[in-house]
């Protein structure tokens, strides 16, 4: 009798593991300021999950989603990781940003599970800052900066550049690192000056005074910044009558901030896919339509896309590995070289779980209207020591 009871108890405990579903745990911000960035990417991830389930599932099983809220708080992020683990998660999707996603990703790493950042673009969000089973499907910030450098040099004849870095987050530093690495190596190109500001500076008048003190207006200004500081900086630069082409990273994608500088022209950024309905790849527009059908609105920025891509890549690796075991899936992911996705090819290696080069769409804002004007892939991947800031 005693044995039967223990056996029953053991069976009861083991029950969640025997479930017929594959469970993906989302430990993401469902409240707090980060929510605005996590929700679109998580929604995109769920669109891909729905597609996979509709097509018969993964390894013949349906994918189930469980969720926990990090409340945009680093300590809550670890708790959210434990929470989805308790709910039976076998793979974990964590917040967009390294700082807010890493505590949860470390919980997954401790279990030998795969974790994917929704859209982190800092090299730490992977092997370097979490562990061997952690990935991000977005494009590293230095690649965005380098893409801007090479494209502006080739297509807009940029020869002089001024670098204005917002010291708020690592992402900004990454953009500038990539630009600083690429631009001076290009023929006839030089960086004529640089300066820093803080995202929440009430005014960047001193920085603008320094740009105006240059002998000639620079061809391009590489602005390494994110909202809201980026919109504020653009408004103040244009108000001061500086008409240089302004370059930025993908983080400022979306038209929601354009009212800050009415009639803005000559502002360029690289994106993984266009939200404006003019991407040359039909898959991108198919996704935009699916997103609109699910949420009632088109994606507000490109940061929905990495969510879709991460599930796509992970599911492919799971199929190839024949299991959801972290190490086995990691091995399959690391074999991916220019693996096609709806948003361009993606590669991973045993050194880097990020994209150190990528085909990017170039979006330019003219008269306050954003439009895709070109695409560009940097001529060589950003080297590892540049990524690591050595």
């Amino acid at each position: 009798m005693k044995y039967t009871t223990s056996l029953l108890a053991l069976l009861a405990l083991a029950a969640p593991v025997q479930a017929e579903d594959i469970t993906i745990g989302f430990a993401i911000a469902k409240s707090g300021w980060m929510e605005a960035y996590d929700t679109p990417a998580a929604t995109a991830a769920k669109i891909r999950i729905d597609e996979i389930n509709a097509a018969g599932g993964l390894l013949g099983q349906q994918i189930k989603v469980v969720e926990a809220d990090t409340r945009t708080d680093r300590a809550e992020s670890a708790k959210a990781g434990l929470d989805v683990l308790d709910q039976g998660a076998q793979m974990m999707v964590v917040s967009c940003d390294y700082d807010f996603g890493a505590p949860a990703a470390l919980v997954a790493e401790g279990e030998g599970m795969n974790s994917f950042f929704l859209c982190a673009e800092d090299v730490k969000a992977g092997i370097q800052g979490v562990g061997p089973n952690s990935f991000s499907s977005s494009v590293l910030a230095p690649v965005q900066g380098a893409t801007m450098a090479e494209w502006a040099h080739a297509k807009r004849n940029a020869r002089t550049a001024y670098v204005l870095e917002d010291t708020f987050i690592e992402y900004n530093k990454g953009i500038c690192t990539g630009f600083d690495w690429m631009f001076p190596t290009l023929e006839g190109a030089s960086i004529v000056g640089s300066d820093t500001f803080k995202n929440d500076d009430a005014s960047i008048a001193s920085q603008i005074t320094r740009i105006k003190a240059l002998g000639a207006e620079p061809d391009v200004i590489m602005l390494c910044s994110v909202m809201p500081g980026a919109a504020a900086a653009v408004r103040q630069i244009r108000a001061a009558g500086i008409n240089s082409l302004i370059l930025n990273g993908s983080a400022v994608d979306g038209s929601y901030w354009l009212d800050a500088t009415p009639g803005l022209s000559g502002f360029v950024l690289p994106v993984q896919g266009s939200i404006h309905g003019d991407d040359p790849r039909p898959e991108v527009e198919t996704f935009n339509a699916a997103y609109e059908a699910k949420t009632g609105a088109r994606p507000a920025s490109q940061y929905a896309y990495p969510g879709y891509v991460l599930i796509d890549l992970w599911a492919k690796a799971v199929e190839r590995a024949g299991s959801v075991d972290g190490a086995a899936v990691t091995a399959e992911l690391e074999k991916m070289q220019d693996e096609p996705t709806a948003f361009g090819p993606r590669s991973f290696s045993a050194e880097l779980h990020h994209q150190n080069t990528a085909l990017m769409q170039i979006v330019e804002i003219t008269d306050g209207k954003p439009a895709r004007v070109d695409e560009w892939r940097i001529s060589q991947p950003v080297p590892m020591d540049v990524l690591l800031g050595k």
Partner: protein
Amino acid sequence: MSLQILFDALSLGGIYAIAALGIALIFGVMKLVNFAHGQFIACSVFALILPSADAVAVLGLGALPAGLLIPAILLFGAGLAVLAEAFVFRPLRNASPVALMVASFALGILLQNLLLVTYGGRPKAISLWPELGQPVRLLSAEIPLLQLFVIGAVGVILAGLALMLKRTRIGLEMRAAAEDFGMARLLGVRANRVISGAFALSGALAAVVALVLVAQTGVADVRMGGQIMLVAFIATVMGGMGSLPGAVAAGLALGAVSALLQAFLPPEARPFRDAFLYGLVILVLLFRPQGLFASASAKPRV
């Protein structure tokens, strides 16, 4: 070039001075460091747009002509502060200053989350008076019109406030309350009237900062106001807690020094501008722990 830097310094200092004044006014009458002041600024900014979590902001109050918009936003800021006083700080009137301070933090968090719920976490664009960005030539400098407006407005506000404090009954009562609140009450100063008055003024000053910030940056963000609040608080400490001229002088000085550091630090040191700035603040406080202009009540009596 140097004239340009002078204007940069004056306009940034002016914004900080107005924010510091808002904090010093309340500290003067009720020994409360109002950490929700930054959120008063943020709320006044968001009052310009219609509540909605959509990515694109639609102007609400912000669509009014300037002649109506400015009084409306000032009234909004003042009203918000008066409400905060009535519902949060009045019931705590006899609590310890620490309890009051914690309450102000709580109020700040409440207001910020209220903004998050109504407007979402994404920054919004507001194009308020873009024509103020036009640069004007003044001798050797090219100065955005807005900077001139800010410097002018700071001058007018300071003069107006000084007149009010010196010449009107409520001003006299406020100064008396700042000197010795208990004594002032014994002599017939009505506590509620003075404190509500100080809150209303402080809220209106927060609204002024909000308008300047929006005109300058063109964005609304739930986190905005936090940085200014911090600088303003440091300015009130440096100026001597409770001293109004002290807060103004220290606010101006902080803004000016910040602009000068940005202009003259070598590039490698520039990312650490604020470390230099606050290092200087520590130096000042080492030599004058009571602040530059300590109010009479801040000095211990022997």
